């Protein structure tokens, strides 16, 4: 599911709630991949282990924004996430909106059907939460 070989292993650690090991692994890739869309997905999942739900949302939104930013991807020699992972990102975002009990955003995300609707939703989130910037 990931473009970086070791990331499947880190995802597995997170799924097994191995917080310390997952953190160490994430830390070891931070310098190289801190704005990689797959890395941000892992980070968003890790933040949930730490009950930092809002930071997790901000991180997953940043990841989805980067997937749409071809210039940024090219400049950093990153690949956009695979379609399967992008579906996972929307699922995670939906889970988080439900977790924080934000019915407005939860109802909106669960009714997204087309790719165009999903793209527009991310654009909308970027406007609502403009501090999430990609430099």
């Amino acid at each position, binding site marked *: 599911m990931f473009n970086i070989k070791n990331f499947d292993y880190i995802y597995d650690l997170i799924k097994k709630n191995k917080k310390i090991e997952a953190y160490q692994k994430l830390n070891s890739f931070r310098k190289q991949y801190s704005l990689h869309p797959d890395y941000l997905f892992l980070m968003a999942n890790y933040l949930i282990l*730490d*009950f*930092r739900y809002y*930071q997790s*949302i901000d991180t997953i939104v940043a990841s989805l924004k980067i997937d749409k930013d071809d210039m940024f991807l090219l400049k950093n020699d990153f690949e956009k996430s695979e379609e399967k992972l992008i579906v996972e990102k929307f699922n995670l975002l939906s889970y988080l909106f439900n*977790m924080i009990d934000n019915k407005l955003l939860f109802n909106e995300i669960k009714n997204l059907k087309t790719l165009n609707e999903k793209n527009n939703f991310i654009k909308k989130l970027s406007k609502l*939460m403009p*501090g999430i910037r990609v430099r």
Partner: protein
Amino acid sequence: MKLLWNTNKNTNTFWGNYHFLNSTSWIFSLLSEINYEVIENINELENNDNLIIVDSKLNTKKILYEALFKKCSSVYLIHLGDEGGTDELNFIYEKCIHVWRTFGLPRHFKNNKISSIPIGYKSGSFLDNKKNILNRNYLWSFMGTTHGSSRHDLIFQHNDIKPNFIKYTDIFASKDSLKTEKYYEILQESVFVLVPHGYIHPETYRLYEGIECGCIPIVENPHQFYEKFIPDNPFIKINLWKESSTIIKNLLNDKVAIGEKAEEINIWWLSYKKKLKNKFNRIINV
């Protein structure tokens, strides 16, 4: 003892100027029991002087500090504005007699040589007689940017609690921000001040501004930051904003409890500030 406010000297950074304009009331209030002479530049220092320096952006100032350590017999640093904990600190922190820093970092909480202090409030005038908490025009207020999901959710979760006052701004301290006087006027009319996580650090100025104005703060408290930073504080602490809206709705049915909470916070804040001042006094006036 001499004091040099250096955040804005020989530099023209936004934060250097911001701290000079907005942090002086807070920092000078903490130093109110210390006798010092304010100097404008290092040329006013004599050999073996004792110096309190208020500064930020230490990364760019190593040469200055090398000179200060040679010239002065003791240097006390009040370090402002290092929100991300990214300033190179080791050389400077090691050679100071004591360091007070805002934006406290957990790695410093148990270091006897480094005291973490609140970021405090913007300079401005406050009413001597705060308006009774039960006679205020707004149940809650939020003024600032909505840069992340927490702040967006804060507004969503409290939108049905009225009357309220909401003022969005594009970026921190932008031209569309309220004037300081108006900003404090709104806080003094608010029962609750909602305090989300800052851009990087959990603290934001509105916490202390709200307390100064007699509001009851409800703070977002990721990884129990406030318990570690200020043990025994009486703030209402939440992880998700849905908790806060329930707390407010419950408290609105108990006016006595609101009055008692406001009073508890006010008494605690006066006592806490006194302790901070005493600590400055104890360390500097050896």
